[in-house]
């Protein structure tokens, strides 16, 4: 049971990281972005381009310390982040901005984001095919603790990076001037505009930050499991659940929601088939929607 809880914390950290970008965009633009999961897939695959390049060149292959991966992956984070940020901003400019300007209903953008999701997934299938891909094919070292608890050393890295990213976003949103402007925009767009905040430029920043978080989540998720075109879409469903659990726009809520879902999903495998994990996430989400529609972890806006 302790082992399942530890697995739950690992899964929950990745869910939390993935859901923070989602909740930021939801809080700021009112858009529930259905393409978020497939953008995560794009992030993971764009790191793969560079890892494949390093492998071809035969550099940066040696595993660092106790981990299964070499410096190549750490360096590949940077181009993956740039691609993901660029993509997020591009999608916003091409799809959501015209809808905003036409004063479309938020559901119009919601449905459009589903179209974006399918288009991205189709492109990934076309470029990389339906096969699984791996960042590293080497051994995956394990750590053995007392009471038969074991996990991979990579997972320590995943949890640490995820928590650093979450903390950085939290500090940015609560302390930095830009973070405050973004929160103002989320609270009251009209008031933010007449206070001299350039809302369109702020939205570019918001999507850029979301793109950064998406890429980090994608690469970490790729290290934890394997890369396949459906990975982000399947991952999206627990992300939605975590965000709803945490309440609209709340970073700490998304973090707590992610951990609750991660632990609940892993612990449920003690009684249920592992393939029911998404259904467990949904059951929790529906119960929360019915009994606490504003989320269980406070309603503070970002």
């Amino acid at each position, binding site marked *: 049971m302790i082992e399942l809880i530890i697995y739950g914390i690992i899964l929950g950290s990745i869910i939390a990281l993935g859901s923070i970008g989602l909740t930021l965009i939801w809080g700021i633009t009112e858009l*529930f972005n259905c393409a978020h999961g497939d953008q995560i897939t794009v992030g993971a695959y764009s790191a793969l381009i560079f890892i494949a390049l390093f492998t071809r060149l035969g550099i940066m292959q040696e595993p660092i310390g106790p981990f299964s991966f070499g410096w190549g992956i750490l360096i590949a984070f940077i181009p993956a982040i740039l691609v993901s940020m660029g993509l997020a901003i591009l999608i916003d400019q091409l*799809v959501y901005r*015209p*809808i905003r300007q*036409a004063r*479309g*209903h*938020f*559901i*119009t*953008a*919601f*449905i*459009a*984001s*589903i*179209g*974006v*999701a*399918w*288009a*991205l*997934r*189709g*492109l990934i*299938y*076309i470029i990389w*095919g*339906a096969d699984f891909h791996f960042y590293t094919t080497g051994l995956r070292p394990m750590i053995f603790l007392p009471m038969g608890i074991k996990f991979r050393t990579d997972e320590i890295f995943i949890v640490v990076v995820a928590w650093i990213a979450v903390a950085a976003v939290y500090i940015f949103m609560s302390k930095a001037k830009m973070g405050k402007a973004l929160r103002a925009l989320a609270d009251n767009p009209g008031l933010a505009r007449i206070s001299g905040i350039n809302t369109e430029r702020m939205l570019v920043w918001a999507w850029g930050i979301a793109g950064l978080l998406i890429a980090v989540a994608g690469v970490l998720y790729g290290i934890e499991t394997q890369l396949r075109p459906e990975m982000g879409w399947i991952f999206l*469903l627990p992300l*939605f*659940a975590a965000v*709803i659990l945490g309440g609209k726009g709340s970073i700490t809520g998304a973090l707590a929601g992610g951990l609750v879902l991660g632990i609940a999903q892993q612990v449920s495998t003690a009684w249920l*088939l592992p*393939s*029911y994990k*998404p*259904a467990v*996430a*949904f*059951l929790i*989400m*529906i119960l929360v*929607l*019915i009994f606490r*529609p504003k989320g269980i972890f406070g309603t503070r806006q970002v």
Partner: protein
Amino acid sequence: MAGILNFLVSFAIMAAIYAIFAMALNVHWGYTGLLNFGIAGFFAVGAYTSAMFTSKMPTGTLAKYVKMAFGFDLPFLCGVLAAGIAAGIIAVLIGLLTLRLSEGYLAIATLGIAESIRLVLNNEHWLANGPQGLIGLPKPLYGLVPPAYYNYIYLIIVVIFLAIIYFALERGIRSPWGRVLRAIREDEVMASADGKNIFLFKLQSLALGAVIMGIGGALYAHYSGAIQPAVFEPLFGTFIIWTMLTLGGTGNNKGAILGAFIVWALWSWSTFLILKFVPQGFQTRAPFIRYVIIGFLLAGIMVKRPKGLIGEERTVSRF
């Protein structure tokens, strides 16, 4: 020539089945403003119910390989009726749980329920044979004509269903009941100030649309003759139908039918063209171009023409 004609007939059957789904979604989204992202769930319930009502329980050695909770060996129409009723019952249960949620939440909740239904069908082997699904489903009026011409018969059956549903819905939306649904879509508070029970009307709308989806699922099951849980994944079971309705015209049944035929033509004919023109080595990846087409189409419609090709008629009353 005969080949092209056969292709057109099987195209028309699937397009007409999808048109039924698009009209059902139109009841939910077009008339009532309910964001149902769980079409695939009602689709699956309808298809499996009808399949199991009309199939024989497997016997002998077959029983070792094919597991089913029940099999009643009833005629086709009983299966279709049962499919509609089962989907309607599921819709009422879902509605009681979720219809008080706001629009976006309803979408995500229905998506989750549809995925859960698919997971249950996939994992519970005793229920309907798990991932292998059910095969050899009976075809209505089989043996009336030589098997090579059977699709013509089925096309006639599907078109009859399509016509009945179309005229019934047109009648319904022009009735006072239909106008209440549109009032709820436009302004819930006003409709409730007029003394309408919003929740009850939404529940009726959800159930009516789901019954039609169940019937559509049954028609699909008996046409394809085989169903597996993989058919009811969100793209094929839900979002392609959303693309059809939004392209054709939300709130307009003619638009729903038009959208179904256009999108299904893009989908099925692109497979045909890909197999013909794309080089051999690329053929396993090329079909995914359809994902990109559907995706761009859906996003493009939302940006350029959110009302679709034929928009809603402004007045539905004759006076």
